[in-house]
């Protein structure tokens, strides 16, 4: 894979753009089964992140992730702030000091991120949360690397899994988060957090793909 700090920052800023472009989508998904602010929350957070990332090129990726995590925690609020924030902060630990990361670092990053989200939110896959996009994505990553796919092909499998996972949340009732208050009424609606997780992973794929050719 081989992503430098500068490239990592490019990816993170692209994620910011994606979130901004999908602000309304995420807010509307949250409106159906939550309180209709997920897009607003996420956009607030990643806008702040994008600002913070200017002139961090010289920093190592661990510091970059820590900054991203802190910035999300301090700016987002709601459920998604602590969750995505914790994800990045935990991930920061496994890449601290690194100026460049490869696909194996990405495995550690996703593993730590998911651990962090589970630790904070006490949810499990099937609860209709972001985990339903992230966990299948992680599993796809493991296989892809076992199968020695190229970074870009591996990431493609990862984002496909995330997409399927997000779509799957339509079929289930929420057990965690606001949507859980709706019980079965939440069935038929795609989870906003799972969707933002997919969008983030897809942006990683798209951007790395561009950077690689």
């Amino acid at each position, binding site marked *: 894979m081989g992503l430098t700090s500068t490239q990592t920052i490019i990816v993170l800023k692209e994620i910011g753009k994606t979130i901004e472009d999908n602000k309304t989508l995420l807010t509307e998904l949250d409106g159906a089964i939550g309180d209709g*602010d997920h897009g607003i929350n996420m956009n607030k957070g990643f806008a702040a992140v994008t600002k913070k990332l200017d002139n961090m090129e010289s920093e190592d990726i661990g510091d970059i992730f820590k900054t991203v995590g802190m910035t999300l925690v301090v700016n987002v609020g709601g*459920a998604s702030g602590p969750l995505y924030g914790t994800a990045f902060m935990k991930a920061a630990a496994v890449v601290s000091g690194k100026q460049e990361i490869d696909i194996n670092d990405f495995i550690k990053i996703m593993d730590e991120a998911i651990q962090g989200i589970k630790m904070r939110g006490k949810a499990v896959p099937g609860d209709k949360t972001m985990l339903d996009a992230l966990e299948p994505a992680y599993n796809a990553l493991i296989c892809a690397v076992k199968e020695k796919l190229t970074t870009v092909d591996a990431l493609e499998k990862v984002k496909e899994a995330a997409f399927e996972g997000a779509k799957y949340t339509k079929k289930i009732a929420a057990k965690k988060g606001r949507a859980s*208050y709706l019980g079965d009424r939440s069935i038929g609606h795609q989870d906003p957090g799972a969707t933002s997780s997919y969008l983030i992973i897809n942006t990683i794929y798209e951007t790395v793909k561009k950077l690689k050719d």
Partner: protein
Amino acid sequence: MKKVINKPESVVSEMLAGMVAAHPEYFKKLENFNVIVRKDAPVLGKVALVSGGGSGHEPSHGGFVGKGMLDAAVAGEVFTSPTPDQVFEAIKAVASDAGVLLIIKNYTGDVMNFEMAQELAQADGIKVDSIVVNDDVAVENSTYTVGRRGIAGTVFVHKIAGAKAEAKGSLSEIKAVAEKVIANTASMGIALTPCIVPAAGKANFTLGEDEMEIGMGIHGEPGTHRDKIKSADEITEHLLTKILGDKPLQPNEEVAVMINGLGATPLMELYVVNSKVNEILQEKGIKVYKTFVGNYMTSLEMAGCSVSILKLDEELKSLLIATADTPAFKAL
């Protein structure tokens, strides 16, 4: 969206500015933080109570900052729980030697953000404990889910824990009495209209002229189910059946009642509901010790109401009526 505001981005800060301008005798605002702090905080030897959550529930929570209730209230964006740094600042501003109790409504976001703040404060050597309010019986309680929401019943926790703190109770004593209030409180609400988050500009759901949502939260989300509008008596019977089904009461037991307006429902209607609540409780031989009717925990301009019942014992009774002096809750 018809609102008397300037810009959605600035509504929370302008609201807080208006609050401190209105009530300087009660509290101040922490500079650069959306935190309302009791004027004389930190009160030495007194456990400090910190609550808060998303904005849009006014007078909750800032309106309850003052003698006999909260020491600080943290205001997040509308319907979005505040961030850990904000809560941490509130804790630092009011923390006394006696410690701090966080009163958290049971929402994933609130719980996680307050938890993180608690961790930060503890790392800072501050004595902090927390409790989570979950009085909404519309939501099934289950170990597999996040469980029930905290709604209007939270105000009972503020009042009673606040009185215990004012009486210089210890952190553990205050936590214990707060837990008792939580265990003895059940609430449930309905809505006749949705509400509009300023930043969103439109409602989360639409209701027909003849429809209502049952089992409402306080964040503009849909209720647990939808039904045709019923009469005030039928609505009240339904709410009380669910409430008493969850927290059964025996004849001669004493309760406090709160008929809470969600924002756009006039007192006239809340009193009509109370007249039925009172009638039903009387039939069952349950004694109403104190009744509160008004907008205590709102959901912006949502039309609707909730009923809360708190089972009382001697300790809770005396703390419930103990002197309190805050902009939105006073007891002489």
